């Protein structure tokens, strides 16, 4: 099992698509920073426009914490999309290149093989989120400095710099769980569909639907609380003025359950399927 995981890591390191993923993350980060640099003041002015009649503002809200929050919001769509494309490619490329056939003709356990794929995919996801977080914190604080964070979530919430810092870190940690879910889904889709293009399309549709369903009220308490799409936003809850920890723990726990179920479904399908590609 360990050797299979090492082998998967080796493949990822050698694949150019890994570099594309890293580059995509940094490009997204760069776009947000550049647009914030040129348009950030305008966004804040718009946000506080009505208050300007009554208040004078002292201090700078266009700071590193706001930029990190804006980049963090790429966890809604951009980052999971990139992860789903890259991670599904871990398996679809093996189907396409017929290396899967070669590997499984060796004395390799199918369960261990696909399990190692899932484990490495989860590790890769965590690595990407970590890279995003570290680079975001470093670059944002370096260019924009520190300061209070303003977020519109159930009102205008202001957080002092130190508090904003730990809220952002917790949000990245919680967001990593959501990213793992999407990564595992994409790998399971790759198991089912085998073809790269089909998997990409279905993954993108899954992500879009998931985002849309998050906003829909099902008029049913059970579905509103337990349906998978309602569980992927736990990281955003760290920006309510009073953090609803129980909701965050519940959402993360349930989403982890969905991740495990999705993984088990993928493993079962892969094990039952004929080796022939």
């Amino acid at each position, binding site marked *: 099992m360990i050797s299979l995981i090492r082998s998967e890591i080796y493949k990822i390191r050698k694949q150019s698509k890994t570099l594309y993923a890293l580059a995509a993350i940094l490009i997204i980060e760069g776009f947000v920073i550049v647009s914030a640099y040129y348009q950030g003041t305008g*966004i804040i002015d*718009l*946000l*506080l*426009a*009505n*208050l300007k*009649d*009554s*208040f*004078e*503002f*002292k*201090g*700078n*809200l266009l700071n590193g914490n706001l930029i990190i929050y804006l980049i963090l*919001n790429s966890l*809604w769509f951009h980052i999971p999309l990139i992860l789903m494309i890259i991670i599904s490619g871990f398996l679809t490329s093996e189907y396409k290149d017929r290396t899967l056939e070669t590997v499984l003709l060796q004395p390799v356990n199918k369960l261990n093989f696909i399990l190692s794929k899932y484990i490495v995919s989860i590790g890769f996801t965590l690595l990407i989120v970590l890279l995003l977080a570290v680079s975001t914190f470093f670059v944002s604080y370096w260019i924009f400095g520190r*300061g*209070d964070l*303003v*977020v*519109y*979530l*159930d*009102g*205008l*919430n*202001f*957080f*002092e*710099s130190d*508090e904003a810092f730990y809220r952002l870190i917790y949000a990245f940690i919680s967001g990593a769980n959501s990213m793992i879910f999407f990564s595992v889904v994409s790998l399971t889709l790759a198991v089912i569909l085998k073809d790269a293009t089909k998997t990409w399309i279905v993954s993108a549709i899954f992500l879009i639907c998931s*985002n849309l369903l*998050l*906003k829909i009220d099902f008029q049913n308490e059970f579905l509103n609380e337990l349906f998978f799409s309602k569980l992927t*936003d736990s990281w*955003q*809850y760290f*920006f309510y*003025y009073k953090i609803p920890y129980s909701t965050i723990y519940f959402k993360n726990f349930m989403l982890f359950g969905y991740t495990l179920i999705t993984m088990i479904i993928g493993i079962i399908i892969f094990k039952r399927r004929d080796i022939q590609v």
Partner: protein
Amino acid sequence: MKRLSFICIFFISLNLISGQEIDNDLLQIKKRMDSIKSFNANIELDVDISFINMPTKYGKVRYKWGESTKVTSDDFIMLPKRGLDLTLNEIFRHPFITVNRGEEYHKDVLCKVINIIPTSSKANFSIATLFMDVGAKRIMKSEISSKTEGVFTTYLGYQNYMDALPVAIEVQFTVNSVKIPLRFLGKETEVDRDVIKQEGSKTGKIFLTLSEIQIVK
């Protein structure tokens, strides 16, 4: 003839108004405030507006005679546009007349109430009402109707009878709900436009607490 007598009465009235003296008690209070050459104090700031959640902020307030009061902080702070004019400089910047409105109790203190009506178009308020504690020579409450920023009501609390500067300031004002740029919205944020329209403007309050006040006379 009627028209001529109306014009005469009008100009005589106008002359009487323009010749009206500024309330003597207000001048006494202003004189007392002007004796303060400068002051420094620590300031604690709390915001009470329904759609704003902000922790208590801390800063320093500095005043130097002839200059406006300055508040500095390491954090982001929101200050009311009115209510920090403790030395009445803003009111006295342009000519005005005062109208005595009698006496009224405010926080168990019998206050003399006057209206201040600017006679210059340069003034940035249309009318102000001051509640003066004549005995203690200080302002207890003020209502300033600004020309562009709405009405600001300020309540001033003092530590003891001798103090010229307040230790607690409460500023009330009307504020419109925020306009939200969509890009700034979190996914869970639901914007109920009907509710926002119904709510319209709201009353906000800012509480300022001054401590370690150092006055130079």
